[in-house]
């Protein structure tokens, strides 16, 4: 084949061009640490990584929901425990008061104690978590869902549940409504105990010990309910954390560059490029004029 100047130039440029574009791609990969940055880098891997990124974001969303819910659930749990302790204290008071020898001032001081317990229980039932009433159903803006009026505690919140999604289709009610608190009969028993103490009605006092124990059982029921929510939340959290690790690993497999491989390729491209430059400059200087 006859080789002409134009051919030599075209071929040299074409080869050098191919080398520089390889080098520039490798430079991109090494300096960003990513092999897939744009869809055209590898459409299939890009689309897999893209889907997994969306799954990861969804996963992180669930984790944030769990983070937020766990404070609420802990506060609810604490409130229930405190109410249960008040019940235990009330039982103790009732037991002391039911002793036949106790009367007069002592009985009055015990009544005052129960009165204070009612105040405590009310304030716990009206407590909030970051400004939201814990036991008002979804009517969380209500600052006092429970009010005491002439010896009767009434509830003005609603019976709706507050729902959260902990992971795909795993929904849970994270609240105990005020009605459920009322249904434990705590306030009714406390107010009737107070009335009995005021009246010195030993029989009612005696009877309230057993009913208070039922109240305590009711609270255990509520604590168990919230405990199981917490349990399923923790399980979901563990699953999410494991899934997150997996996803991150998959995404990294798809997107991230194998640095060792990239650097080795870069070095071999570099050598090839230098050789190509060298040979191009030598060849372009070769010319019959040097010998004429």
């Amino acid at each position, binding site marked *: 084949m006859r080789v002409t100047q134009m051919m030599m130039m075209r071929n040299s440029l074409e080869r050098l061009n191919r080398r520089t574009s390889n080098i520039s791609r490798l430079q991109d990969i090494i300096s960003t640490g990513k092999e897939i940055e*744009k869809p055209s880098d590898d459409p299939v891997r890009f689309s897999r990584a893209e889907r997994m990124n969306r799954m990861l974001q969804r996963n992180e969303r669930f984790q944030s929901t769990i983070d937020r819910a766990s404070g609420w659930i802990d506060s609810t749990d604490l409130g229930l425990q405190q109410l249960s302790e008040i019940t235990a204290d009330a039982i103790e008071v009732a037991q002391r008061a039911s002793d036949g020898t106790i009367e007069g001032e002592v009985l009055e001081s015990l009544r005052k104690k129960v009165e204070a317990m009612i105040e405590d229980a009310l304030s716990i039932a009206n407590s909030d978590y970051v*400004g939201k009433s814990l036991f008002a159903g979804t009517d969380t803006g209500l600052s006092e869902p429970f009010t005491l009026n002439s010896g009767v505690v009434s509830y003005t919140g609603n019976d709706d549940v507050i729902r959260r999604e902990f992971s795909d289709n795993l929904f849970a009610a994270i609240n105990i409504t005020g009605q459920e608190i009322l249904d434990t009969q705590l306030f009714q028993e406390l107010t009737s105990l107070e009335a009995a103490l005021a009246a010195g009605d030993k029989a009612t006092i005696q009877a309230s010990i057993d009913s208070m124990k039922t109240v305590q059982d009711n609270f255990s029921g509520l604590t168990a309910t919230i405990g199981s929510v917490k349990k399923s939340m923790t399980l979901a959290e563990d699953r999410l954390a494991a899934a997150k690790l997996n996803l991150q690993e998959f995404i990294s497999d798809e997107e991230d560059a194998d640095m060792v491989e990239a650097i080795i390729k870069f070095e071999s491209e570099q050598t090839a490029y230098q050789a190509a430059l060298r040979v191009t400059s030598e060849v372009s200087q070769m010319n019959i004029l040097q010998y004429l």
Partner: protein
Amino acid sequence: MAISNLLEIGKRSLLANQSAMNTTAGNITNANTPGYSRRRVDISNISVQLSSLQSIGIGVEADTFYRIRMQTIDARIWQETPRLGQFETDERVLNQVEGVLGVNTDGSLSSVLSDFWDSWNELANDPESQTARRIVADKGALVGSTLNNLHRNFSDMRNQVSSEIDATVDSLNRMVSQLESINREMINGANPDLEDQRDLLIGSISKLIEVDVDIEDSGVVNLRTDGLTLVSGTESTELETTVVTDGDKQRMTIGFEGHEFTPRIASGELGSLLNAYNRRMPDYIKSLDTIAGKLVSAVNDQHESGYNLDGISGISFFDPENVSAGNISISSEVNNDPSLIATRSSATGVGNNDIAMNILALEQRQLANDKTIGDYFGNLLTEIGSRLDESRLNLNSQTLVTGQLENQRDSVSGVSLDEELTKMVQYEQAYQASTRVIRTVEEMMDTLMSIV
């Protein structure tokens, strides 16, 4: 035979070698001229017939002046270049498209959408909060402005393609009329310079549009595209672009002045640009419109049925009038007062978050052509990516094919400096030898004269 004849032979030899030297010099100076085909002079012996059996050489002459060219290779090159032009333009346009979508950066549509769903999640976790509402409104507005920007970028790009089409057609027309005037000169007799110009023009035209080339023996060229004549002898046709409005869509067609028929232009730079203007860009814009429209209607459906903190329902989150990517925005009510954002399906209980959760669940709903909005957009990205990847591969292989053919052409028609310089030495020596002949004849004559 007279001695003076010898002088004549010497003179002819000087002239012939000078002419050959001329050609060589022309080849050397044009070694890098695009489209130049090397020339060659044929030098032949001249003789006179003395009798039927005897002839005598009376010197040399430079006769025909050749342009060395292989028409079959040219034809192959002209067949392959339209595809080269097409793939180059495909790659350039798609590269821009991919760049505009701003993949994997903070402001990209994927990340903005994800932030939008995140903000609804935060609101679902804290339905009483004003701050969370403010963030939802901000992220909603950001989804709107991101889609608006993408839409504007695509429209700008489409306009740019349209002016490129006009410019390409202009330069095509200019080249066609140049070919026509070359044809006019060819009729008076072909010459190598005209032929080089003609072939160079055909090459440039075939990069823009696919053409059938028919070169007559006289050197006159006839060009057709999809059966329609561009140049025929001394007549040429001008192409013109027409924008056809079809409903709310606009298409560009290219046709001949006064002809109803529009040729199919599938390859060449022009084919690629037309494809981008008429099909690709509208498709991409339509996909963005689908995302915007489905998002607006799905979010609004839920939102309008929900109650906000003040117990009011029926408020739209996105402006229900604006359902395309070009104008999607959050409603002015929500924009002015984010506290109007609804989270609950009943007027009671501000802690109720069912509407917020329903809106968040839209992320997983197959709203757009049986796909979630995220998948739909992901598919669009992947599709553009595969197209770009494909056009790069095509471009690489087509560059190799045409490069190979051009090498073949240059192997025949190109100038080799080594060859020309060698010839120069050869002709120079012959020239020197001829002068020697003349001097020898002079000496011979002197000798003769001294006898007298």
